[in-house]
C-alpha cells in the first residue's frame, strides 16, 4: 500500500550555517550579554557583593559629557564617511567603467597600503604633519611660515584624526563601490545614450541610482567603525581629537577601572549603530522598491 512517504530531514541549511551561527553566538552574542551584565552590576570587577542596578545607565543618560562626546564622534564620523565616499567614488568609477585593461593592477595599487601595518600608516602621518614635518618644512622653505611659527593644528587635533581616518579607510570604501559599478548592466547606459541622455544625465539617472547600494554599503563600512575609533585619536588626536571610543577604552583600562560605565557606553554605541544601520537599510530598501504604481 502506498503509505505516506517519510519526510527526509534536510540538514543542508543547518549543516552549512550551524558553525557560523555557533561562532556568532559564542563570540558575539555571549560577550555582548556579558558586557550587558557588567553594565547593570550583575558582574563587577570588584569582588564585594553588589545589587543589580541601573545606576550606570542613569548616570550616562544624565551626564552631559558622555552624550556630548558621542555626538561629537558621530559628527566626525559622518564627515569622514561623506568625504571618503566622495573621494572614493570617482576612483571606483574610473576603475569599473573606463574600460582600462589595467583595472585590476590599479585596484591592487589602490589596496596596496593594506600590506603595511595599520599602526605604521598612522604613525607616518606624524612625520608628515609635525611641527618639523614634511608640510611645515615645505611652508618654511616657501617662506609662508617662520621656522618658530609652524602650523601646529595639523597634528594632535581633530583635523589630524579626520585626515588620517580618511586616508586609512579610502581603499576599503572604493572596493564596494567598485563592485557595485562593475556589475552595472552596460546596456542600460547604451539605452540612455540612444535616448539622447548626456553623460551627466546618464550618470545621474542611471549609474548613480544603480550604484547606490554600493555607496550606502561603503558609507556604513566606514561610518560604523569610525564612530568607535580610538587608536587613531590616541596617536594623532591630542586633546581636541578625543573620541567616544577613547572614553570606552579609558574606562576599562586606565586610572581606576570603571567597567560598569565602560559597558554602558559600549552598549549604547552598539545600540545606536544598529539603529542607524537599520534606518539606512530601510531607506535603501524603499529606494530599491521604487514608488508604488
Amino acid at each position, binding site marked *: 500500500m502506498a503509505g505516506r512517504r517519510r519526510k527526509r530531514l534536510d540538514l543542508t541549511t543547518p549543516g552549512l550555517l550551524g558553525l557560523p551561527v555557533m561562532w556568532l553566538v559564542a563570540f558575539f552574542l555571549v560577550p555582548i550579554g556579558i558586557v550587558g551584565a557588567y553594565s547593570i552590576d550583575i558582574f563587577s570587577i570588584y569582588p564585594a557583593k553588589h545589587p543589580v542596578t541601573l545606576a550606570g545607565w542613569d548616570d550616562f543618560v544624565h551626564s552631559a559629557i558622555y552624550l556630548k562626546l558621542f555626538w561629537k564622534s558621530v559628527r566626525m564620523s559622518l564627515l569622514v564617511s561623506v568625504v571618503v565616499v566622495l573621494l572614493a567614488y570617482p576612483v571606483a568609477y574610473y576603475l569599473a567603467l573606463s574600460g582600462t585593461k589595467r583595472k585590476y593592477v590599479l585596484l591592487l595599487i589602490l589596496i596596496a597600503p593594506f600590506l603595511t601595518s595599520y599602526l605604521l600608516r598612522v604613525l607616518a602621518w606624524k612625520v608628515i604633519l609635525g611641527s618639523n614635518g614634511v608640510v611645515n618644512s615645505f611652508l618654511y622653505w616657501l617662506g609662508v611660515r617662520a621656522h618658530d611659527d609652524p602650523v601646529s593644528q595639523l597634528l594632535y587635533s581633530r583635523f589630524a584624526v579626520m585626515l588620517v581616518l580618511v586616508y586609512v579607510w579610502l581603499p576599503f570604501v572604493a572596493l564596494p563601490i567598485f563592485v557595485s559599478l562593475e556589475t552595472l548592466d552596460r546596456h542600460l547606459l547604451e539605452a540612455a545614450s540612444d535616448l539622447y541622455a548626456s553623460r551627466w544625465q546618464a550618470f545621474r539617472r542611471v549609474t548613480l541610482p544603480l550604484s547606490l547600494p554600493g555607496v550606502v554599503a561603503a558609507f556604513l563600512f566606514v561610518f560604523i567603525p569610525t564612530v568607535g575609533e580610538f587608536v587613531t585619536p590616541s596617536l594623532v588626536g591630542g*586633546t581636541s581629537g578625543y573620541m567616544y571610543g577613547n572614553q570606552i577604552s*579609558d574606562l576599562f583600562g586606565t586610572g581606576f577601572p570603571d567597567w560598569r560605565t565602560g559597558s554602558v557606553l559600549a552598549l549604547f554605541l552598539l545600540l545606536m549603530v544598529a539603529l542607524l544601520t537599520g534606518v539606512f537599510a530601510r531607506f535603501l530598501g524603499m529606494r530599491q522598491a521604487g514608488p508604488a504604481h
Partner: protein
Amino acid sequence: MGEGEKLLERRFSREDLLKLAAAAGGAGLLAGRAGAANAALARLAKESGQLQVLDWAGYEVKPLWATYQKKYPGEKPKVTFMTNEANAFAKLRAGFKPDVFRPYVGYVRDFAESGFTQPWDPKLITNLKYLNPTMVKAGQYNGKQYGIPNDWGFDAILYRTDKVHPTAKSWSLLFDKRYSGKIAWYDDLNQLVWAGYYLGFKQPYNQTDDELKRSQKLLISKKKMVRMFWSSETDMQNAFASGDLWIAYAWPADWVAMKGKGLKVAYMHPREGALSWIGMLMLGKGTPRSEHAHAYADAWSSLQSSNWLENNYGYGAANTKARPTSKDLLKVLKVTDPGALREPRAHIDRYMPRRAQYARLWQEVKAS
C-alpha cells in the same frame, strides 16, 4: 618545556640537597616524625616551576634581577606585562596569579586590602637595610611590609629653556597661555592632585567634593592650551624632540633623554612641591614560590641592579648606596639632598580614599 617537565628535570643545587638532607634527616632524628621530612621535601617541590612576575615593560631585563640567577642558576622568571595598576587589577581579578607584581606607592593599600597580596618577610630580603627608610615605610600597611621599594622618581615640569621663560616656579607653567598648544599633561588622575596643590588645598590627595569640582574646573578651563595628554613616555619624548612640545608634565628620565638629544631643557620642581612616585614590588597571596619571590625582591634591591636602573633608565633606585654615573641624573634626582623627598618639597603619592571619584572627574576632563 612544560611545568611538569621542569619539575622532573630541575637540578637541585648542592645547597638544596644539603638543606633537604638536613631537613629530612635532622627532622627524622630529632622528632622522629616522617611528616617533618615530608614537609621539607614538599617545600622544595612547591618551590619549583618558573617565578611568575607581573611587571612593567622594560623591567623584565636580566640586569635588574641578575643576582636572582646567581641563587637559582638556569631559572628565569616568566614575565607578563602590566600597563598600569588598573590593568594589573583586572588581570588579578580574572584569575591570574603572579608571584610578584609592581604597582606604585599610591596603590599599596588598595592592593593590600584587595586580597591578592600578602606581606613580605623582611628577614628574607638582605638588601632591605640599604633601602631608603622613607620609601620602605611607604610600602607598609598595618605595620606589615607589603611593598618593597625599588624605582622612584618625581613628577615635575620639563621645559625648553630656549623657548620658555617661566614667570614663576609653579605648576601654573602647565597652563601658561603664552605657550598654548605647546604643552602636554600626563594622562592620569594625578592631574587633579597638582591642580589641588596649585589651588592651595590642604589635602590634594583627598579633596572634598567642592575642592574636586574646583580642581576639575581649573583643568577643563585650561585644557584648550594643552596639545596632548601623554600616556606613553616615548610619544611624549618624540613630540618634545620634534618641537611639537615645549612644556610637559614629565619624569627625571625625560629630562635626561631630552638633554641627551641636545635640547636646552630644565626640570623644574614647582614651589607647590613636586609629586613623587615609588615602585613597590608586592608578593602574590598564597604564592607557591615564596622563597624565589623573596630572592627576586632581594635581587632587585641589590646595589648592582640599582646602579643599572639608574644608569640605564634614568630612574632613582631605593638603594641608598646607588649612585648614577651621570652627573645630570644625580642633579635632577637630587640624590644627595636628603630633604628632596620630604614634605613640603615633594609629595609622595599615597592612598586616595576617593580614587574612583578622581578617576571619573579626570575622564570627564578628557571628554569635555
